[in-house]
């Protein structure tokens, strides 16, 4: 079997919740040895997030935690204890990379900030992920990614036009930030390969998300136009909407990207009369009568099964897809064909499931070797095999509650 892309890379992962741990997850998928440090005294939020097997709460069975930490080794350390921080320092000497996502300043209070760790591990690359960055007036603002979404302008632009915004689903900046963190970290690894030098990377969740709004920020600068809620509509396409179907709470999304696609759609739902309706012939007229347009489409979709709408429209070359629920996604033939879901045996609940790596490499593919750790699963392996601690020393750490 080919070697893994990041084989030999050693990562100490002190991050928690979602945005930070996803970076180490990607490194582990491509062959890095990642040691995730957590404490069972202050349970990682991802462990209570779910979903849970059969809907039964179990903080060692959260699919959210699995998704962020599969493939990693896991140890428990109470970082409030001096001895635990000693273990972290030993791991930092072992590591090429340290990842953390505490409130800015916390690593310094632990005496584990970059200058201190660099002093004992000179080539170290450290990635700090936080809500608004390590510096600046709001550096100390705590928040999950829903707060990040509000601060980055995203919450303001989800909802119907003229109504109170509802914001994106969940902590949106948690989905954006790990991509920027991983990108910066990989670039820093390449730089270290060439120069021998490490560095400290400061990733702000909000800054990543604002970068995902770069066209809208530029639109404001150039044209004075402020991005706002517009339901499912789009300036460049009509229709671009989500419609009811025959079954209750079953929705289908439909777009016509140009007049030809509108004609194909019109032929299906209204025949030649609708195709030839000059009042809807081009984008400008359809945008002008968009309410009416959507009523016409829904009057047709409401009599059809959502999958049937998708099938008929796609067969005619018109973009359409059901609004997929979890059941649809698990059964999705495309995601199955790509191999999007990984199932591994799990010692506690039979089988675990998580998403495969979100980028596919032909020669050094991702590998999935272990489920996310239960509390302290790899304490022995890490402390004895990797750090070379004696059994006596490990027992002492255990007995004094450092390994909790």
């Amino acid at each position: 079997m080919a070697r893994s892309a990041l084989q030999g890379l050693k990562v100490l992962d002190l991050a928690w919740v979602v945005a930070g741990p996803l970076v180490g997850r990607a490194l582990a998928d491509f062959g890095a040895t990642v040691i995730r440090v957590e404490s069972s005294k202050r349970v990682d939020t991802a462990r209570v997030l779910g979903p849970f097997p059969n809907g039964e709460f179990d903080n060692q069975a959260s699919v959210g935690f699995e998704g962020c930490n599969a493939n990693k080794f896991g140890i428990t350390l109470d970082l409030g204890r001096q001895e635990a921080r000693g273990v972290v320092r030993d791991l930092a000497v072992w590591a090429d990379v340290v990842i953390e996502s505490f409130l800015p300043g916390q690593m310094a209070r632990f005496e584990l900030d970059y200058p201190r760790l660099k002093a004992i591990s000179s080539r170290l690359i450290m990635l700090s992920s936080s809500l608004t960055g390590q510096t600046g007036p709001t550096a100390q603002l705590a928040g999950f990614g829903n707060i990040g979404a509000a601060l980055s302008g995203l919450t303001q632009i989800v909802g119907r036009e003229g109504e109170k915004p509802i914001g994106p689903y969940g902590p949106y900046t948690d989905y954006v930030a790990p991509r920027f963190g991983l990108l910066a970290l990989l670039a820093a690894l390449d730089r270290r390969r060439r120069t021998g030098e490490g560095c400290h990377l400061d990733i702000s969740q909000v800054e990543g998300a604002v970068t995902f709004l770069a066209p809208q920020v530029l639109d404001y600068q150039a044209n004075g136009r402020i991005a706002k809620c517009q339901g499912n509509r789009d300036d460049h396409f009509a229709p671009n909407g989500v419609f009811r179907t025959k079954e209750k709470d079953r929705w289908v999304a439909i777009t016509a990207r140009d007049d030809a696609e509108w004609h194909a759609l019109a032929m299906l739902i209204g025949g030649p009369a609708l195709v030839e309706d000059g009042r809807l012939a081009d984008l400008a007229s359809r945008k002008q009568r968009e309410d009416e347009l959507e009523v016409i489409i829904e009057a047709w979709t409401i009599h059809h099964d959502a999958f049937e709408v998708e099938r008929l429209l796609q067969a005619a070359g018109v973009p359409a897809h059901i609004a997929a629920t979890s059941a649809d996604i698990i059964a999705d033939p495309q995601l199955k064909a790509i191999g999007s879901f990984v199932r591994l045996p799990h010692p506690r609940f039979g089988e675990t499931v998580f998403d495969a790596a979100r980028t596919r490499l032909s020669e050094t593919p991702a590998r999935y070797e272990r489920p996310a750790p239960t509390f302290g699963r790899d304490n022995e392996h890490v402390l004895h095999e990797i750090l070379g601690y004696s059994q006596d020393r490990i027992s002492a750490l255990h007995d004094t509650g450092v390994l909790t």
Partner: protein
Amino acid sequence: LLLRLVERADVFIESSNPGVMVGLDLDYERLRKVNPRLVYVSITAFGAEGPKAHYADSELIVWAAAGPLALCRTPDALPVRISVPQAYLHAASDAACGALIALLARAETGFGQHVEASAQVSSTLCTLFAHLAEAVGHRDYSVGAASSSMHKGHSKLDLSGSGSRTEKTKWLARDGLVELHVGLGSAGGRFANALFAWLSEIGACPDEFISWDWVTLPQRILDGEITLDQVERARDLVGEVLARYTRDELVAVAQARGFMLAPLLTTADLLDSAQLNARGFFVPVDEAGRLRALSAPFRSCGADIANLRPAPAIGEHNAEVFAELGLSRAALQNLTERKIV
């Protein structure tokens, strides 16, 4: 000409519909023969192969297929997207990461490879793992906001820190909207406690809620000691108090008291953000005489980060690039006249 560029390139990036590059004889198998060190990056909507590879796509269609659309509901249950494109940005970021991983692998193996990202796969992350609920038998985990809060049983309690399944998380302050999740359990509970400590200090907390520990509230709800209606009443009370203050006042209190609250900023507010400006996030770039502020999302201590340059005008660097290939000025002139360049 393109193959001569490929010979010298580290990375090749394409985002055409599946099959197009094969038709142009520029697919991965062809180009790796020209340059075995090439990292070839493909970005598609659904994937290069598979039953939906040739699906007609749009931002909305990918968002629908990946799961976040069905999760995000208006109060009357309409699934809504984010009003600006996002799905392909997630895919682009994943593709960029894949390219760098392949470059690091190449440093060891000497060979390039094919890197693929699909917007559908990339966007499934935007469900916060709700898309996997059915795979483990967590029924109705993904219930929309309209119906989420009134169900009974532990499987329906929203224990997330962000309030991903809670209806009331946006509030009207005196001068605009703020985001605040009054959370339950170990993720959000301590922040709710900090909020209620403040409410009680300003005399705005009825006795009914004063003794609540929001961290242990889920168990008390399950035990039937506290009803979800009471929780909703407590949240409504929060709304009444927030309405008396300005957003700046609330942010100051939140930061001092350690609960999580933020104003809903607009794209206009961003350019004036004290935080973003303190960190030099917006970089002024001269784009053919027009001054534009571009985003610079990377900060590092110890590593220099490349200067931002404006996007090129059409053909802006033709002379530079083709000179590197060894093309004479006359040859380039000829190609330009024949409309090949």
